[in-house]
């Protein structure tokens, strides 16, 4: 969270009052949108703080892309307000936003450089600025040789890099990526993740929608979950996972699995196991009754050789499924 401080003059010059004002990069207030009779977004409110990576999650058709299009002013909301750095969002703010849509393409017959120049100019950049920034990125991605290549001559992975460069070329303050990892090969996913982390370190704000929960877990600070046009969850990734933990622990050990199970007896339940090699396992255990982690370690000591033990938090994938199912059940009950 970042605070901007300013000096407020009062009657006495000697006495200076410091007021701290929280600057939100983006604030959505009760956004609603319908397409004909179909409600796409129902009073969705979100806040993105400066310098964070925010994950927008939800099943297909939940309304994520519509929300992203509203932020980019491609679609207009029926109700609600979008604020950019505490100002009502308008067209001039678009130059500070970089947007990589889910359905993204390039002109096949244009060269890589012409593409960058065209999209950079549309974002209000001068030719010199485009050249400087383009050179920075091609050097960074080591793709200087492609400059004059036409898009149709590039492989899919190469084209994806070009798309990313075109999105960040104008050094946006807010980067919005709709399914940035879909269609990317693992090497490019890793590369993009690294870049996003680096941009975050530079104070840029990033919003991404993704079905890749592993990536979300890895890079997102906070997430919001949208389901059936409504926001059903918002919070820090760590807090969400922490709040949904249900007493599961993992123990990596060497020894006999039978001895391990016998030791557990009635106070614990073996949920799952992984075989690592000859007599080496990871066992996932759930506490029963009043038992805790200390009790687990005590019953196991002497029976097997413990290598490591840790608390298992639910993955974002599990949280996602849990929340969606819960929401569906609530809907059914209504």
């Amino acid at each position, binding site marked *: 969270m970042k605070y901007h401080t300013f000096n407020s003059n009062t009657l006495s010059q000697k006495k200076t009052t410091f007021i701290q004002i929280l600057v939100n990069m983006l604030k959505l207030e009760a956004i609603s949108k319908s397409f*004909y009779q179909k409600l796409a977004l129902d009073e969705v409110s979100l806040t993105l703080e400066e310098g964070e990576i925010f994950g927008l999650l939800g099943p297909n058709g939940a309304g994520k892309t519509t929300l992203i*299009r509203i932020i*980019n002013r*491609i*679609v207009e909301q029926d109700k609600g307000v979008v604020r950019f750095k505490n100002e009502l969002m308008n067209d001039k703010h*678009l130059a500070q*936003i970089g*947007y*990589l*849509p889910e*359905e*993204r*393409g*390039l*002109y*096949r*017959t*244009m060269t890589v450089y012409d593409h960058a120049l*065209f*999209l950079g*100019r*549309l*974002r209000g950049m001068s030719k010199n600025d485009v050249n400087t920034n383009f050179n920075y990125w091609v050097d960074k991605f080591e793709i200087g040789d492609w400059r004059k290549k036409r898009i149709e001559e590039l492989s899919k992975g190469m084209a994806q890099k070009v798309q990313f460069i*075109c999105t960040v070329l104008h050094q946006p303050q807010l980067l919005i990526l709709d399914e940035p990892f879909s269609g990317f090969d693992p090497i490019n996913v890793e590369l993009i993740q690294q870049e996003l982390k680096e941009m975050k370190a530079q104070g840029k704000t990033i919003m991404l929608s993704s079905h890749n929960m592993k990536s979300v877990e890895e890079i997102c600070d906070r997430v919001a979950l949208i389901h059936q046009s409504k926001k059903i969850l918002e919070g820090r990734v760590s807090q969400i996972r922490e709040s949904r933990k249900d007493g599961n622990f993992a123990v990596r050990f060497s020894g006999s699995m039978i001895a391990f199970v016998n030791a557990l007896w009635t106070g614990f339940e073996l949920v799952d196991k992984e075989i690592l090699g000859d007599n080496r396992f990871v066992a996932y255990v759930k506490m029963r009754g009043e038992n805790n982690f200390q009790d687990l370690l005590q019953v196991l000591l002497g029976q097997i050789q413990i290598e490591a033990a840790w608390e298992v938090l639910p993955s974002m994938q599990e949280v996602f499924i849990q929340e969606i199912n819960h929401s569906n059940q609530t809907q059914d009950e209504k």
Partner: protein
Amino acid sequence: MKNSWIIALRELKERMRSKSFIAMAIVGPLLVLGITYMLFALGGKNKTHWNVLITDPNAIMQAKIMAQEDATVSYDFANDYIEIEDFANNPRFQKYDAMLEVNEKILNNKTAFLFYREKPSMQMATRVQYQFERRLEELMIAQFTSLSVSDFRKIKQPINVAMRNVYDPRDEASDMSGWVGFFFGGVILLFIFLFGMTILRSISKEKSNRIVEVLLASVKPRQLMLGKIMGIGIAAFLQFALWILFVGIGLYVMRETLFPDLLDASKMDVVQMTEAMKNQTLQEQMLSAKEYNQFVELIYERIRFGNMLGYFALFLAVGYLFYGTFFAALGAVSGSESDGQQFVIPLIALLFLALYAGHYALNNPTAELTSWFSYIPFTSPVVCMVKLAQGYPQGQGYLIYVSFLILLVSAMLVLWAAGRLYKNGILQFGHRLGFKQLFKWISRA
């Protein structure tokens, strides 16, 4: 607007690089030159000699037209009115192929009627018209001005010789200058069709390769649409400029090589009774004759390039904007490229209607339907060209501005409506397009 311009420039660059643009710049002018050649070379094979009776009750022509005999046309004069039926059926007039009616109003309304038995070739018609016009020119200079012939030619209005079939005098067809207008209108339609389809394909392609959403994050849908129409429109104008250049060169080459006899000044010599003409040196006379030989007459004077090209450019630009907007909207709302091709059929039908309207105007210049066609924006680009070439009746010249204004306002309205369609349809992919959906999109703000 700046963003529309960036979009337009990209589009223009892409068009200029495309092979079809270059191919069209070569094939198009060749086609035009081919048609012109056919009109002259093949059109001249009808009847090689004509007897023309000039009825001149007021003796305006003073029974003179040529300084010396022309091998291809002979003239006789009658100082009396001759009824058309009489001319058509009376045995004593059967030796004449045509009757040129000159009445006392000719010096004011600049219109004469030529009644023919058998439709003249274009060469023959031009020859008669040219010789008649030159003679009248001399008379007018002698009667009204003290200008030299060359100065007079700079300011004079061309004389309209309306050609009529003597057996069917109400048939107003076959006015050659009207055909020139029709040709111009046809070129407008050709450009609208070719570049309209380019707009459609370009937008469909942007939709199918999904770059459109990237663009929409920076530009408004209307800006994007306008940029596309502008860029492709500039490409169309450049293409047209190339056509003019190549056709111009081609006509010059044809004049010098394929039709050398047309340069023979002696064949085209008129009475030359004015002092100014008499005082011209032989060289000047040769130049003058060369300048005014019938081929040049047709291409450079009957067409009234200065006048026609100006209106042509205006009607081409606004007609393109009008139709181009439909193509753009269609590209934006179609779910797939094949979808767009299917829905383009009604648009092509409208272009055919425009072509038909042009032809109808050519044959029925004074019909009420022709007037309607000249105001309807779908047909006016062609019909106005035909009417303009035929010449608007005295005092009704302002009607072309009315037609143009209607076209311009319609183009603006269509642009506004298409903007809605574009905005609502451009991000819809893979659907099957139906009229119900089109209506929904157009009614949604």
